[in-house]
């Protein structure tokens, strides 16, 4: 029983991976280190995929890349409308990052979204983007007036929603990843042989991709609502 509690506590806490020896030692947590690894993977994949693009007589790799990109672009353009296409690169980057971050448990790393700091920063970035989109479209006065729509009585609720939305975004992502980690730790403690495999498929792959999709879908809904 104590072994179970110990393994749970070890999974929940974030450990310091290494210490940068300048300015009196900056602690680098393992979520930051794994984020750097994800950035490296995405950058290397990007450089490999866009190497040698041609205008005519394109190869198979470029055809697959173009069809995938067009599919995702049309999907987001349907959500955001014609004027929201400025924000699509950010949304695609976030969905790729959260998807890879949730699935990196399969490679043996600790997932960075298990740390509350990472999910809070993602949610804050998204909300700042939504408000900036509203200000760019309507100007500062129009944005302040839009708090009073459709009826001026619900203006306090609109202001409150400004804080509730990032909170719900971050807690949804964090809670799902934390639940997955706790259940996987319990299963690995009780039945370490074969049972973790199908559960790991469900939690890491299916749940991780769906949570990334929901995060980005909600952010794009908020952007659409702020732009129109």
């Amino acid at each position: 029983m104590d072994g179970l509690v110990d393994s749970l506590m070890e999974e929940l806490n974030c450990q310091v991976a290494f210490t940068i020896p300048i300015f009196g030692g900056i602690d680098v947590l393992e979520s930051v280190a794994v984020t750097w690894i994800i950035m490296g993977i995405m950058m290397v994949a990007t450089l490999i995929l866009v190497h040698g693009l041609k205008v005519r007589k394109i190869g198979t790799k470029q055809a697959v890349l173009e069809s995938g990109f067009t599919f995702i672009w049309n999907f987001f353009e349907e959500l955001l409308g014609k004027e929201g296409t400025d924000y699509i690169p950010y949304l695609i980057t976030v969905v790729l990052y959260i998807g890879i971050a949730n699935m990196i448990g399969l490679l043996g790393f600790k997932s960075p979204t298990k740390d509350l700091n990472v999910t809070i920063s993602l949610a804050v970035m998204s909300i700042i983007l939504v408000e900036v989109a509203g200000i760019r479209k309507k100007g500062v006065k129009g944005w302040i007036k839009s708090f009073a729509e459709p009826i001026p009585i619900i203006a306090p609720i609109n202001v409150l929603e400004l804080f509730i939305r990032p909170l719900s975004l971050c807690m949804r992502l964090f809670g799902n990843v934390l639940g997955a980690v706790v259940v996987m730790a319990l299963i690995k403690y009780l039945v370490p042989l074969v049972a973790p495999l199908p559960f790991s498929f469900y939690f890491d792959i299916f749940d991780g991709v769906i949570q990334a999709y929901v995060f980005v879908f909600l952010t794009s809904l908020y952007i659409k609502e702020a732009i129109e």
Partner: protein
Amino acid sequence: MTGLIAIGAAVAVITGIGAGLGIGMATSKAVDAIARQPEADGKITKALLLGCALAEATAIYGFVIGLLIILFLK
């Protein structure tokens, strides 16, 4: 004190009932809609997945609160 902590955590997780009922009802309506018009099942599935993920969120909030109660109250 540990008894009260345990009862508090148990009450926090009761929010799971709401998620189970909501997602069950949503899935039943989605299955009805697909049976009524099978060509639209792509859009129906997309809407169903989104609705389920959003409804799950309230149960997850209860779980996180239960976990915080267990870990941070002495």
